[in-house]
């Protein structure tokens, strides 16, 4: 082993130690936002989440006008609280697509029968893979996607009626 080679571990070590030291003096920030805001939606193509509503792929999101992409599930209780708000937005002409996370077609159909179906398209994300790809950490969660298929805004948790203006403003900004 030449002397230069033997120094490589030491150089790597010093580099890592310096990075640690740098991080220690950084202020703490623990909120985790999706890294994909202001980036294009990653490519995906999901099968239909429920019979009767079309399936959803990433290409369907770039339609020239802003849309909402809503992660929901029939097993998710907060999603029930969100359903009326989504329904109101749909009535106001907002285009909403849904992704059903870890769900079955039967359960989704029952959920939509009970709480209304605000969605134009619904994809079935059986193993949360699209959810992970979009950097979403829970259900429900909603993204504003602009006409070119670029994510403009991420909303964590259920959209209540108090949050409605925020989401509508973001949709307006995305035009």
């Amino acid at each position, binding site marked *: 082993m030449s002397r230069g080679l033997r*120094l490589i571990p030491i150089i790597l*070590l010093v580099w890592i130690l310096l990075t*640690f030291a740098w*991080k220690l003096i950084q202020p703490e920030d623990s909120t985790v936002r999706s890294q994909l805001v202001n980036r294009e939606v990653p490519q995906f193509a999901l099968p239909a989440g429920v019979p009767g509503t079309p399936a959803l792929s990433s290409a369907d999101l770039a339609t020239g006008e802003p849309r909402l992409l809503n992660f929901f599930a029939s*097993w*998710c209780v907060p999603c*029930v609280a969100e359903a009326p708000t989504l329904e109101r937005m749909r009535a106001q002409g907002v285009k909403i697509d849904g992704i059903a996370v*870890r769900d079955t077609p039967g359960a989704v159909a029952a959920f939509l029968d009970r709480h209304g179906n605000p969605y134009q398209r619904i994809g079935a994300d059986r193993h949360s893979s699209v959810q992970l790809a979009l950097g979403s950490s829970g259900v429900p969660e909603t993204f504003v996607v602009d006409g070119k298929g670029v994510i403009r805004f991420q909303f964590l948790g259920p959209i209540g009626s108090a949050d409605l203006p925020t989401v509508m403003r973001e949709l307006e900004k995305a035009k």
Partner: protein
Amino acid sequence: MIPETGLAALWLAAALSLLGLFLSVGHVRGMLDAERAVRALAIVQGLLCLFAFLALLIVFARTDLSVALVFENSHSAKPFIYKVAGAWGNHEGSMLLWVTVLGLSGAALSAMSRQLPPRTLIAALGAQAALALGFHAFLLFASNPFARLSPAPVEGRGLNPLLQDPGLAFHPPTLYLGYVGLSVAFSIAVGAMLAGDVDRRLARAMRPWVLGAWIFLTLGITAGSYWAYYELGWGGWWFWDPVENASLMPWLAATALLHSVAVLAARDALKAWTMMLAVIAFSMSMVGTFLVRSGVLTSVHAFAVDPTRGAFILALLGVYVTAAFVLFAVRAGTLREGAPFELVSREAGIVVNNLLLTVILGVVFIGTLYPLLAEALSGEKLSVGAPYFNAVAGPLAILLGLLLAVGPLLGWRREKRPIAPKLTVPGLFAACTLVIAFLGLPDASILSKLGLALAAGLLPAAILPLIGRNPLRAPLATWGMAIAHLGAAVSVGGMAADSSLTTEKLTAARPGETVDVGPWLVKFQGVNPVAGPNWTAVEAELRASRGGGVHVLRPQSRFFTSPPTETNEAAIQTLLAGQLYTVLGPSDDEGRYQLRLWWKPMVTLIWFGGAMVAFGGLLAMLGHTRRAWRKRKAVAE
């Protein structure tokens, strides 16, 4: 008085380690003969640490609220066992435990490692004293566990029922024994490089230490994994969380080390590499301690975060690891490699084993630190999770498993006989399982299918080293190896079964409804209110059956008052065939509750296999120690 006595013992121990360090430097440089003094100092220093730790235990057992640490972490109404466990359930106490284990390891090294050449032993004790000195300074200057409060408060603040869990009480000490136990291998390696004396005797002296630390690490990781499994409520058993990785990395290094040290012990080869691994293994322990204690990486395990303490540990880590690396860079060239070996031999098998383990270690290390490095270079925040780790480390682990079937069958130096015929049975097992997995489990990932096949093949392969001779007369160490390898197969089988056979049901149900998951019909009987010391809960009654008897499960959804938090207590029914895992979530206005149900066939094998691995390690350690002891006795006679 007791806290002051404990603090005095710590100062004295620090002073003795400083003295021990000076004397051992003098001895190794040939300026004075201090062999007996250095050895005695190591023992006294270890006992003083133990004394200080016992003092802390007493203070906690008596709930002496004039001590700040007790006030913050204990409460007079706590059950006694958790009062005592509270001593190490906080930063200062756990660092005192760390230092105590370090000191006792030094004492044990001094008392028991007679087979080491004296100069190497004194140099190793010097290295151990240097380590102790730094961590003593950390305790005394940045984390004093015995600081007093005046006036003493009337009641403590620490009645957090979340932390009152037997798993949490004994998990940290187990891991610490593993982490810090590796310090001895580090010190022996440093001592041997300083004294220029790396040979088989050294490897034999180092091996029990590596095995001992490795057993505790294995147990600690296994227990930690089960704790996360039942506590976090999502049915996962490994999350690739930075704190989990912090314990996995030293384990990977120690596993590689205990294999390479066997080569050095038996064949006098792989000298430089073994020394490097010994340095890396303990360095990973220090990196792990740093990651956990500094909070530089976002983790689900939120511990007290303090940048000054982080900086202190970082400085210690930097000094020790850099010094060891520089020593290695200077001395590695002078180590003559010993006996040569051929391409098909036990040595070559272990070299490949080490290569794979080191690459997996690198993969985990890079994945764990990448978010940090990326943020430092580009300011971008990102996270690295299971998709990366599984995709990169998984196939390497499969290769390692294949090697595990072959390696132990190879002879030292070179294998003349063909080994393929011996592997017919394991090969058939694996092939049949693979075919069944492909036909029966079309949805399972390719990795889990391969894992199932591998486990099926490894079960017979692991016991092959015991076959062909009288198993009762096989050395204990061989038994240990076979059982540890068998445990690895069992654990891999459990992991693959969990990811391919698990059925999951997430649903919102009303009391009275019946939900099916896998072969089970689960009837949701109803919910009852339950109350604890500072929480109230809704407890569901679930009646699960699959034809035979009925099992009643009672998962809870708990609401804590201060601070207001909500947690889920999973209810788990363990059966021979697997576990039924149930979680109760929040409810809606219409009286429906979120239920999460999993049927996990064979999942318990993951932890059962882990325990087998540790037990195999224990047998190997006993076997090697007994042989060394007999040999010494024979020489003495």
